[in-house]
């Protein structure tokens, strides 16, 4: 029967991003043809963006439970217990497509969206982070995108008064046509005030609060679920202008109401606007919902029900209120000069019913639009060329320059150099909690009235992912945890943003599947469950996919803020130790890119059991107050970590690494591999000489390899026999890396 169903035109289906088969399925379930409004709603809810129709089966593989998990995936944000009756609430989200079209507003509204996800849970946002990817900065357009995105993130975060305390930014060919803009938000709340987006109580009124509804971003959700192409130009009205001032008022009003028994549920309006917020809110509670779009305040005249239901106008919230209390709640919003309107009621019909005044314009079973999303199971295929690329030996290449030059080039690389030109444009202090500011490893925020602090970071490396998506994802999790541990904190849980190309390509789907397995394995090993996340697929332009770029946001807990550790060398005469393995691994390294312009050979190996042992040992050393500085070895390897700790501390260092001393009989890039290779599971720490014995004992007992490599002091950065550069020369290169790039 179904194949005889009359299907609308290509164009009509394209507008709602449905296939003919999906349309037939809809007709089959409904037993009739959907009308225009219903078709738009089905298209939005069955889109990748809302329905996760490609990724959902894979996401089931992620570990999502643990003793501290209070809220796993499925809500607006995840939540973990951090002690003292407090919870950390956090999530990361992408705004890649909008930012590619209008960098300032795209990034700004991305920040606005992730903030709403957190205060919808009742939690006060205390930190923002931004994970960014662009093409090489030598192209004017990339500088324009970079500058616009940074300005937009600051423009929203600074205005609303939530500090942007961290993030990351990398520049690579892979992102030339598809910049990535992921924003993470962390909030803190008392357990009992956690608010869910679960409707209940048929007859309870539904309130729409905040901005008027305009023709903003109609089909934004479907837009994020297709490749960018020339026609993207025509979709430009999808760009929206955010209003951080309105959101600030909305946030304060919602926080005043958090935990109020008269509030049954809160849900922000994000992708697909009223459509997904009403449907998900009702369905989570096994209810139905009946709304009248004529009651929604409009910014523009002549808007159709279709437009109102699919508008993605920012700064709007939906609340379910105990019947009879709507007026009191509306007054609470009026205090902040916020408009609120009762636009519907919760029902027990399990249907989404939409009226336009008198007439019903939509009546859809919620199960159909949410649970019955037709899943896609594309074919997965490992890229054929991968074996050849992995087979190449990175150590065989002849270094184009000596180690000192290499170090300075790396420190001056936009992928490694100082991010100050970015984070000085972000208010990273408001709230009076930022104890470790951006510029080191993870950021650390104290929690007033307790001895606690939370560490937070984002990490991800697309070049490893290109070579091995599974290991790339494992490394992203491990590095995020390492950044948390470097502050002394214990990694607790993870949020993740999966930035990939078009999953309809077998190679991309394979990458996605591998990466998710990698995240799962690493999160298991490090006991950091995934509590929230976001998927951004179709990061393709004219057929070229980005490198697989899973971005991991991690939150950690520090019992005693006084036990925190910074990344910069703290005192002359302190001993410098390298903890973890020494090896010569250059595959996919920043050195390889700078020296040879390639990413080939195997990415660094990762032994998750070893990673765990190393991290636990460093954390224990920090807990015992043995460390005066700790920094993880990431891009640029041991030598860059050494230089960064020296630069951040304003102190020279003299070190020796015996593997570099007798390169005879070694492959040409051996020394470079030891110095700049990005071998995993490593920290560079410093401590008082008197504590060395105690420290060694701790590491021996935990079966962690380590070695004392040098001592802090002087005004040069030296690795005997390898390089000897003046500290100020290194600092100058580091500081200049992003300076003349407009940001």
């Amino acid at each position, binding site marked *: 029967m179904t194949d005889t169903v009359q299907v609308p035109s290509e164009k009509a289906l394209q507008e709602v991003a449905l296939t003919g088969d999906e349309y037939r399925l809809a007709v089959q379930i409904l037993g009739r043809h959907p009308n225009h409004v219903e078709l738009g709603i089905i298209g939005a809810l069955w889109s990748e963006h809302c329905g996760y129709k490609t990724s959902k089966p894979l996401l089931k593989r992620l570990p999502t439970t643990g003793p501290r998990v209070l809220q796993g995936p499925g809500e607006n944000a995840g939540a973990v217990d951090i002690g003292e009756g407090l919870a950390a609430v956090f999530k990361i989200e992408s705004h890649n497509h909008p930012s590619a079209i209008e960098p300032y507003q795209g990034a700004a509204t991305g920040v606005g969206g992730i903030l709403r996800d957190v205060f919808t849970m009742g939690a006060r946002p205390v930190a923002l982070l931004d994970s960014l990817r662009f093409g090489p900065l030598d192209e004017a357009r990339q500088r324009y995108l970079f500058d616009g995105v940074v300005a937009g993130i600051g423009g929203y975060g600074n205005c609303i008064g939530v500090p942007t305390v961290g993030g990351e930014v990398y520049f690579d060919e892979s992102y030339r046509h598809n910049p990535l803009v992921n924003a993470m938000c962390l909030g803190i709340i008392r357990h009992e005030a956690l608010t869910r987006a679960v409707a209940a109580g048929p007859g309870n009124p539904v309130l729409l609060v905040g901005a008027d509804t305009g023709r903003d971003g109609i089909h934004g959700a479907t837009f994020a679920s297709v490749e960018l192409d020339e026609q993207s130009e025509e979709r430009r009205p999808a760009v929206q202008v955010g209003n951080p001032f309105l959101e600030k008022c909305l946030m304060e009003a919602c926080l005043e109401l958090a935990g109020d028994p008269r509030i049954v549920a809160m849900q922000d309006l994000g992708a697909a606007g009223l459509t997904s917020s009403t449907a998900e809110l009702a369905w989570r509670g096994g209810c139905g919902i009946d709304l009248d779009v004529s009651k929604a305040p409009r910014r523009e005249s002549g808007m159709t029900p279709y437009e109102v239901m699919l508008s993605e106008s920012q700064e709007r919230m939906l609340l379910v209120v105990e019947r009879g209390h709507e007026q009191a709640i509306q007054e609470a919003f009026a205090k902040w000069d916020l408009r609120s309107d009762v636009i519907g009621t919760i029902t027990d019909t399990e249907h989404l019913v939409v009226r336009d005044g008198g007439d019903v314009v939509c009546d859809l079973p919620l199960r159909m639009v949410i649970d019955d999303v037709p899943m896609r199971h594309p074919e997965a295929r490992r890229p054929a060329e991968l074996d050849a690329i992995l087979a190449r030996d990175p150590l065989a290449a002849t270094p184009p320059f000596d180690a000192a030059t290499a170090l300075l080039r790396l420190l001056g690389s936009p992928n490694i150099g100082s991010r100050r030109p970015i984070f000085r444009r972000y208010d990273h202090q408001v709230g009076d909690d930022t104890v470790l500011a951006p510029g080191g490893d993870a950021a650390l925020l*104290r929690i007033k009235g307790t001895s606690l602090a939370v560490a937070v970071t984002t990490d991800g490396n697309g070049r490893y992912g290109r070579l091995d998506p599974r290991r790339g994802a494992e490394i992203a999790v491990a590095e995020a945890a390492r950044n948390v541990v470097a502050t002394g904190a214990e990694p607790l849980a993870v949020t993740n943003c999966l930035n990939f190309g078009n999953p309809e390509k077998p190679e991309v789907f394979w990458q996605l599947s591998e990466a998710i397995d990698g995240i799962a394995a690493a999160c298991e090993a490090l006991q950091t469950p995934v509590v929230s996340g976001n998927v951004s697929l179709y990061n393709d332009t004219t057929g070229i996919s980005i490198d697989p770029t899973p971005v991991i946001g991690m939150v950690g807990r520090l019992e005693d803020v006084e036990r925190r550790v910074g990344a910069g060398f703290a005192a002359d005469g302190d001993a410098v130790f390298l903890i973890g393995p020494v090896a010569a691994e250059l595959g996919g390294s920043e050195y390889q890119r700078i020296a040879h312009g390639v990413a080939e050979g195997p990415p660094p190996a990762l032994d998750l059991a070893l990673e765990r042992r190393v991290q636990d040992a460093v954390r224990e050393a920090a807990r015992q107050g043995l460390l005066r500085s700790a920094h993880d070895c990431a891009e640029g390897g041991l030598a860059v970590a050494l230089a960064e700790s020296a630069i951040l501390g304003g102190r020279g260092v003299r070190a020796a690494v015996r593997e570099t001393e007798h390169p005879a009989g070694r492959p040409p890039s051996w020394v470079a591999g030891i110095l700049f290779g990005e071998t995993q599971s490593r920290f560079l720490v410093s401590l008082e000489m008197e504590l060395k014995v105690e420290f060694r004992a701790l590491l021996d007992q935990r079966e962690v390899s380590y070695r004392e490599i040098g001592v802090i002091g002087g005004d040069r950065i030296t690795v005997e026999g390898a390089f000897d550069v003046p500290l100020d020369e290194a600092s100058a290169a580091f500081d200049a890396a992003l300076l003349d790039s407009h940001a």
Partner: protein
Amino acid sequence: MRFGIAVFPGTWSDRDCAHAVKLDGHEAVELWHKDRDLHGVDCVILPGGFSYGDYLRTGAVARFAPLMDSVQEFAAGGGLVWGICNGFQVLCEAHMLPGALVRNGSLQFRCEPSWLRVESTDTAYTGALRSGQVLQIPVSHGEGRFVADAATLDLLEEQRRVVFRYVAPDGGAVGEASPNGSLRDIAGIVSEGRNVLGMMPHPERACEQLLGSADGMELIRSVAASLSRTASFA
């Protein structure tokens, strides 16, 4: 002491200011922009933030809040009114202080440490400080470039109403390192009656070593000291 802390829509350092004054053992009272009641506070703080989004001009709309009528009266009667960042901008818009604060010379927002030289100790806010003392207090603003015509600037200097100037960490001229390009490196000024202070940097962010500096606390202590003096005379 009772510090009143104004809250306009878009204000965000109200909570930081309350935290800071409480650290020094004082009481913090929220002053809602729609109220006229100052609840008998000893000092009014107009905190940082983006009141009304800083749309149109920073501080332009907040200036008309009902609360500001009472604040103007309070100031006219010699009461201490302390504008920080957005609060400074509001005070200029309200013509309670001369000049204006415009977009940073860099055209970029700046959140970074700044060093301030105390130019006048003859105010309630700096009484406990040494003239020439250098304080480390962060800035966080996009529109902090102080401008005024030459005559006004000269008058400010002559009446020793420039309270803080941006300097280098060693106290020397700040030059290119100025966070905003303010004329004559002005970071803070007082009214003719010396009771209304406007400053762009955020002392409330520099009240604990844990956050990098405790120099801001010196200002709060100065205010408390001067208030207890006047109280004891009363």
